[in-house]
C-alpha cells in the first residue's frame, strides 16, 4: 500500500470539501478500495473516511418504502426485521453479498458508487426503480449506472441514501462466481402490479434492465413468461468463469427462478 493522507470528517460538508480534492477517494466499507490499495492498484492521495458520518447510517422501512443510508452495512439490511417485512427480496439480496466479513463492513453507498459489474445491489436498485440521493440531487436508478465502474456521480459527489419503493412481490436470484462469490449473473424481478421491472447484474459491463422480460411478465407474472426468452449474448461479459453465451442463458434461468421465488 502506498502512503496517503487520512481524513475522518464528522460532517457531510467537510467530507465533500475534502472529497473534492484531486486524487481523493471516499472510504465507505473499504471492501473493494482497500483491496485495490493493498495490491497497489489504487493509490489515492487523500482518503476520506465516511465512517464518522452518523447522518448516513439511518435505515428506515415502512409501508411507504425503504430508505437506506449510504453507510448502512449489508448485514444490517439483511437482518433488519422491518426490511424483511417490507421488501424481503432486498434483505435477502443483502444477505447474499460476499461473505459474513464483507457484509459487516460493506455499505450500499460504497457498492453503488463503485458500480462493480458483478455487484448485487445494482440489480435491486434497477429492479425496484430506486432513487439515489446525493449531497447535490436525486438520481433515478435508470440514470445512475453509466458503464463499467462508471456512474452518474460527478467528481466529489457523495451518495447519502437510497430509497426503494415497495413492490407487490419481488425476488433476487444469483448465480455465484465459484471463486469470488460475486454474481456471474444476478436477476432481480419486481412486480408493482401495474408494471414489472427486471434488473440484471453480472452479465454485462454494468447492470441493466431486461425490457422483453418486463413486458412478458407485465402481461403475465409467471415463470413460463420468461422461460422461453432467449437473451442476446452480444455485449455481455466473457471471462474465465463464463462466456457471454453462458451468461445470456443464465439470465433467462435466473429470471425464471426469481419469478418462481417471488410467487412463493
Amino acid at each position: 500500500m502506498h502512503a496517503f493522507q487520512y481524513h475522518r470528517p464528522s460532517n457531510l460538508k467537510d467530507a465533500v470539501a475534502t472529497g473534492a480534492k484531486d486524487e481523493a477517494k471516499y472510504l465507505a466499507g473499504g471492501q473493494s478500495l482497500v483491496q485495490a490499495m493493498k495490491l497497489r492498484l489504487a493509490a489515492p492521495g487523500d482518503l476520506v473516511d465516511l465512517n464518522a458520518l452518523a447522518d448516513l447510517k439511518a435505515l428506515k422501512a415502512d409501508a411507504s418504502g425503504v430508505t437506506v443510508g449510504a453507510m448502512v452495512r449489508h448485514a444490517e439490511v439483511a437482518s433488519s426485521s422491518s426490511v424483511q417485512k417490507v421488501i424481503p427480496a432486498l434483505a435477502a439480496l443483502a444477505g447474499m453479498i460476499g461473505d459474513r466479513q464483507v457484509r459487516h463492513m460493506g455499505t450500499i453507498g460504497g457498492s453503488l458508487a463503485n458500480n462493480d459489474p458483478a455487484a448485487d445491489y445494482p440489480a435491486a436498485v434497477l429492479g425496484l426503480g430506486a432513487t439515489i440521493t446525493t449531497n447535490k440531487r436525486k438520481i433515478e436508478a435508470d440514470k445512475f449506472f453509466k458503464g463499467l465502474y462508471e456512474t452518474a456521480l460527478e467528481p466529489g459527489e457523495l451518495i447519502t441514501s437510497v430509497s426503494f419503493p415497495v413492490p407487490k412481490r419481488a425476488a433476487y436470484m444469483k448465480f455465484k462466481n465459484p471463486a469470488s462469490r460475486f454474481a456471474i449473473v444476478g436477476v432481480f424481478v419486481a412486480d408493482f402490479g401495474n408494471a414489472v421491472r427486471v434488473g440484471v447484474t453480472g452479465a454485462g459491463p454494468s447492470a441493466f434492465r431486461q425490457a422483453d422480460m418486463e413486458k412478458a411478465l407485465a402481461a403475465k407474472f409467471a415463470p413460463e413468461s420468461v422461460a422461453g426468452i432467449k437473451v442476446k449474448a452480444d455485449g455481455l461479459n466473457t471471462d474465465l468463469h463464463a462466456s457471454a453465451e453462458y451468461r445470456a442463458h443464465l439470465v433467462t434461468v435466473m429470471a425464471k427462478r426469481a419469478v418462481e421465488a417471488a410467487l412463493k
Partner: protein
Amino acid sequence: MNAPLIGARIERKEDYRFLTGAGQYTDDLAMPNQAYAAFVRSPHAHAKIRGIDASKAKALKGVLAVYTGEDIAAAKLGGLPCGWLITDVNGQPMKEPPHPVLAQGKARHVGDQVAVVIAETQDLARDAAELVEVDYEVLPAVVDAVKARAKGAPVLHDIAPDNTCYVWSIGDKAAVDAAFAKAAHVTRLDLVNNRLVPNAMEPRAVNASYSRHDDSYTLYVASQNPHVERLLMTAFVMGLPEHKVRVVAPDVGGGFGSKIYLYAEDVVATWAAKQLNRPVKWTSDRSEAFISDAHGRDHITVAELAMDKDGKFLAMRVNTTANLGAYLSTFASCVPTILYATLLAGQYTTPLIYCEVAAVFTNTVPVDAYRGAGRPEATYVVERLVETAAREMKLDPAEIRRRNFIKTFPYQTPVALQYDTGDYEATLSAAIKMADVAGFPKRKEEAAKKGKLRGLGYCCYIEACGIAPSNIAGALGARAGLFEAGEIRVHPTGSVTVFTGSHSHGQGHETTFAQVVADRLGLPLDKVDIVHGDTSKILFGMGTYGSRSIAVGGTAIVKALDKIVAKGKKIAAHLLEAAEADIEYDRGVFKVAGTDKQKAFGEVAFAAYVPHNYPLDKLEPGLNENAFYDPTNFTFPAGSYVCEVEVDKETGTTQIVSFVAVDDFGKVINPMIVEGQVHGGLTQGIGQALTEGTRYDAEGQLLSGAFMDYAIPRAGDVPSYKVDTRETPCTHNPLGVKGCGEAGAIGAPAAVINAITDALGVKDIPMPATAQTVWKTLQTRI
C-alpha cells in the same frame, strides 16, 4: 496403568495454541535490527534482461541494498539443485538447466525473481522494488507442454533445445503392444490432469540472520523439512558447512508439498543477511504465492486399457506429457515418473503396463509435488479408464473391478512395486453398502422428476507411501536418503521429550506421536511432548511428505522406545535384584515376572539420572536413546470411494450429494485425526475435480492468480462425508501403519468425474468440471 492410547480419539494437543492465537509462525518472529526483503519479479513469461537500473530504488531513504543476478554470480552462489536424477530412454541423464536464485540474463516465467530490495521496513522494500527499472526484451512464450515440444517453439534453456527435460519409460512396450493387438476390447481416453496451485493457509516466509559471534546462520522458514532445506542450501548452493547453519521450521500453516522445496528466496535472504549483517525477513503475500510457490499436476495423457471379452485387463498403455514449468523444482523430476507410472497397476492384476513420459519446460511457474504427487495423476488415469471400460463393456463398474482385483499378497506389479498387503474387496463392499448403491436407481428416478441428473462414480485407489527405502530410491535416482530419525529423552522424573525428524504443519503429530509414545511407555499423554522442526535440536530428519510421517518417523520413534525399555529393564533388574531376562515392561511398570516386585517407569528414570544405586560398571547413566529407521518397502494405503452427484441441467451446477470413503490405512493411531486428514484430502480432490482451474493466457500471464478467480472449495461446496476404515496392517513396520495424508486428494477426482460423466451420459469431461463446462457439455451431448 493407563488406558490404551493407540486407536483413541484424542483432541489435538496443538489446537489450543493455534485456536487461541499462540502459534508461532515465521512471520511472527521479529529479530532485533530486522530488515525486510521485497523481490522484483518478472511481469513477462519470457524475456531477456538487457539491464537493471536500481539507482532510484537505492536512493530511497531506508533502502539498505538492491541485489541482482550479477551480485549473485559474483558471489558464486550456486543454482537451486534438483534432488532426483531421471535417466532417459536413451540412458542419458535428464537435462538440468541452471536455476539461479536471481535471474541471470533471462526471466522464464511471470514471477521469476529478478532482483531483491532490502530495506528498513516491508513497505519501504516494496516501494523501492517498484522503482527498480528492468529493461526487458520480451520473447515469445510457450505455456502448453505439448506445444513446447513442437518444432519452432520458443526455447527456454539452451541445453534443452526441444524444451524436453527427459523422455522416460517403464515397462515392456513390445509385450504391451502385442497384448493390445489380441484384445477383445480397448478403452481409450485423452485426459488432462489440471494444474493446481497449492495455497497453504500460511504463505511462505523466511527470516534469516547471521551471527558474527560464531560465523553462523539461523534461518527460520516455513518448511516441511528443515534438515533437507539445510542440506541442499549449504552443500549445493552456498558452500557452507552444515554445522554453521541452523534451520528452524516453527509452526507452519500447511504445506501440501509446496513447502518441501528449497526456494530462491530462502537462499537470497540467508546470503543477504551476512552481506548486511542484518536479519532479513521476507513474507510472501497471496498474489506472490500464486506466481512463486511450486504448482502441482499438469499432465496431458493418452491412456489405453486392453481387455479380454470378460473385461479381464490384459495390458495398459499410457503416454504422458508432463509440464515441469520453467525450471526443475527440487523433486519435480520424480513426480511424473517414479511417483506416477509405478502406480498404474492400481488395485488390479493388469499383467503388462507400458508408460512413457515426456517432461517439458514451459514459461510457467515450476511444477512439483502437491498432495499426492504423481499418485493422483496415476489414479485418475487408472480409475477413469476402468470406469469407462465398464460402461463400454456393459459391466457393472464394481464388477469389473472385482474381476481384476489383486487378491493374493505380496503382489509384484509389472511397474516395479511390490504390494505387501491389502483387501480391496473389503473396502469396496463396505463403500457400496455405506453409499446405498442398491438404492441409486430409485434416487436417480426421483431426481429426474425434479429435472436433475444423478450420477454415481467409483474410485478404487492405491498409493505408495512412507517414502521410501533409501537404497531403492537411490537406485531410482534419488539424491538423498529417505530414512527418518527419532530421539527419546526421558527426564529424571519420568516425563518424556520426543524429537522427530518428521515435521508437522497441520498433520497433528504432536498428538499422534505422543499417543504412540505414551501408549508404549504406559504414561499419561501430558507427560510426553513432541519436538520437531529445528536442526539444532533434532539429530536429523528427512521431513514430511508422501504420507510418510507415522510409517517412517513413527517407526524411528518406536525403535528408540524399544531401546529405552531395554535399558530400563537393565536398570530395573538391578533395582529389583532380579535377572534382566525376568523383567517385563507393562504400561508404565517394570515387573519381575510372576512376582509382585515392581518399579514404576519414573523410579527407573530417576535412578538413571541419580545413579546412587546403579550398575555403573556395566551401564551408562541417563535414559536417552535415538534411532534411525530406513523402511524395507513402501506402504500401500488403498481404498474405495463412491461419489454421487446431482447436476442441475439448466445451470450445469454439480452438487455432490453423497461422498463415501472407505480407506485402509493399516493401523490407525487417532481416528479423529485420520478422519480430518481424509476430509481435507477429499475436499482438495473435489476442488481439483470441480473448481480449481489454473489458467494461463497464450502470453504466459496467469489469469487465475487470485482467490477472486481461483476457486478453492468452501464448506458449502462439499457434502458431509461418510468415512470409515478397514484394516490390513502394514507387514513391515512395527506399528502396522501406512499413512493417510494424501489419500483423499488421490482418490476423489476420479470418483467425482466418474459420477458426473455417469450423470451426463458422456465419456469424458475436463477438470475442473465447472458449471459452465458441464452446461457446455450438455449443449453438445448427443
